């Protein structure tokens, strides 16, 4: 499969996913990946999309000798216009850089296939402060079917989002985990999910669950006193609470914010509770509950919609507590630190190459 730029008049293949080929017409810079894939591209696109790459990396070689900017090796045989292209080494895998470039240039964007690669792509875009590209990638991700963040991927996406400091994805994935399990260490062990992330990230996810449950319990308490249940109509249920709510309904709602169940609404579970209640006889009169038996289905659905809205409105309120997580958990993965670290490493390599052995101090690490 190959994708050809619609913007170029040249008929030659510009990009090709099989061999990670990216050869833009009139390229004026070469980006070299960590695994030595070279991408011939136009500098102006890079500069336009990333202030960091523009300011810190794409600097003329002579102005900052200790940065990663090097000349193409073929220059030693006699420079030509192609040979003298500036080459910039980037600490990114070829497949990820290829995908990133497909979002920068006017070609068909290519999203990596695995959650790990997609998260790495997002982290790289965030690292280089490519805001527009980041938005573009996220829009593309949102179009995926099945959803990128779903039950099967939520946990690993959350883990990677914490690792890379991607708050948006961390929050989306954390919300997705709410419906998965009751969140105990034993359950995570049996699900094989205990070793996926460091304890710090796990602790924050647990705290997020706790906050959501606590908030939900509070909101649903309010929901019960705010007459939300009147959508079901006047109740003459055989078993009412002191507040006048059918006891089976009160019990069902009270489990939603408890630690005994995942934070998710399940209409079937709700309907099962109603059915169980209807089938029970009043011990005093030996009658079944005629009031709940005769609730019209449109009223049941209206009530369900109100309850769903109450839960859906409650969960996002925990966002504020959660957005600090990435900074606290993974300071080491913060974008600028990654970039500066990689630049620093290359600077050190150059220094080591040029320094006299006698000037180096022995260091044990």
């Amino acid at each position, binding site marked *: 499969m190959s994708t050809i730029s619609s913007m170029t008049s040249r008929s030659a293949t510009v990009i090709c996913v099989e061999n990670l080929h990216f050869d833009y017409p009139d390229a004026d810079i070469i980006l070299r990946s960590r695994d030595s894939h070279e991408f011939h591209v136009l500098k102006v696109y890079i500069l336009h999309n990333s202030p960091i790459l523009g300011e810190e990396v794409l600097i003329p070689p002579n102005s900052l000798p200790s940065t990663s900017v090097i000349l193409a090796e073929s220059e030693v045989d006699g420079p030509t216009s192609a040979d003298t292209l500036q080459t910039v080494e980037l600490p990114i895998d070829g497949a990820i850089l290829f995908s990133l470039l497909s979002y920068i240039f006017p070609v068909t964007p290519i999203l990596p296939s695995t959650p790990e690669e997609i998260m790495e792509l997002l982290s790289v875009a965030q690292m280089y402060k490519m805001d527009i590209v980041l938005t573009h990638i996220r829009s593309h991700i949102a179009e995926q079917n099945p959803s990128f963040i779903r039950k099967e991927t939520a946990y690993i996406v959350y883990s990677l989002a914490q690792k890379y400091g991607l708050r948006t994805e961390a929050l989306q994935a954390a919300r997705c985990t709410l419906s998965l399990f009751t*969140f*105990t*260490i*034993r*359950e995570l*062990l049996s699900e094989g999910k*205990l*070793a*996926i*992330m*460091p*304890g*710090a990230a*796990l*602790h924050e996810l*647990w705290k997020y669950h706790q906050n959501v449950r606590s908030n939900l319990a509070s909101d649903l308490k309010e929901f019960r006193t705010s007459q939300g249940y009147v959508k079901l109509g006047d109740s003459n249920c055989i078993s009412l609470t002191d507040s006048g709510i059918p006891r089976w309904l009160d019990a069902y709602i009270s489990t939603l914010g408890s630690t005994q169940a995942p934070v998710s609404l399940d209409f079937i579970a709700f309907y099962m509770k109603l059915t169980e209640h209807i089938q029970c006889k009043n011990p005093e009169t030996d009658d079944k509950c005629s009031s709940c038996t005769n609730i019209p289905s449109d009223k049941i659905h209206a009530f369900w919609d109100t309850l769903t809205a109450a839960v859906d409105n409650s969960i996002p309120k925990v966002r504020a507590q959660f957005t600090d997580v990435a900074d606290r958990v993974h300071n080491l993965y913060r974008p600028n630190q990654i970039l500066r670290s990689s630049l620093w490493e290359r600077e050190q390599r150059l220094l080591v190459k040029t320094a006299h*052995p*006698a*000037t*180096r*101090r*022995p*260091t*044990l*690490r």
Partner: protein
Amino acid sequence: MPDADIILESSDSIHFRVHKSVLVTSSPVFRDMFSLPQPTCGEFPDGLHLVHLYENADVLNSLVSMLYPVTPDIPDSNDGILALLAATQKYDVVAVQSSIRAEVSRRKLLSPTGAEAFRVYAVACSKRLFPEMAAMACHTLGYPMTFESLGEALWSFEGWALRDLACFRLSCNIKLSSRINLFLDCCDEYSKYWLGCPRYACKSEKSRLPAWLEAHFTRTLEELRKSTHIIPMPHMFSTDYLMSLQAHINAKHCQFCARVHALGEPTFSIGIQE
């Protein structure tokens, strides 16, 4: 040290003047390092060769005190002990490491309780101190392993360390269940002491244990099966046993069960002590 011929610099810039020969003799790592060509000039205080180390001054001070014939300076804190052991492991100072472990054991250091036991286990894992990992894993068995009880100690865990500890506790749980089943089936050495309680008729032909004891361990098995702590807290385990025994003795005036209990509480040791 007098006549020192090398300076070790800690991560917090404290200098330790020591003898290269002592380091070379004790540590293959130092021996290999000093076998490489050394610089002959540079910014060296007093003309001595300066070696920068990653350890802080407290750890280096303890390490050096273990290498020389002076009173060993072993830290009191859990973190200090683990850091010292990690340093001895890093520099492959095997004899010193053994001495430290012996001294720690003799002085009963490294005996954390509650969530601290989990944290120390996690730190030992991060430093790959296998004996301390194993010891602390056993140490945690006295405490519940839940998010609530771990609290901030969870921050010290790497994912694999948490999984391994949970697996270990789960295997203990399974072994304990297995032992209790053997006890209930009168197939182990402990159950024979309880055979013959005259106050309760046996409920089944297979089991001749007192009914209260059978009921107690059946409940325990059920708790083990559904425990979110992965292993139940031993004090709850024993409290339930004592209450059941007390109720039985009070109700039936059973001298037999009281005597068996007084003679050594033979059931209670099963599983937990192992």
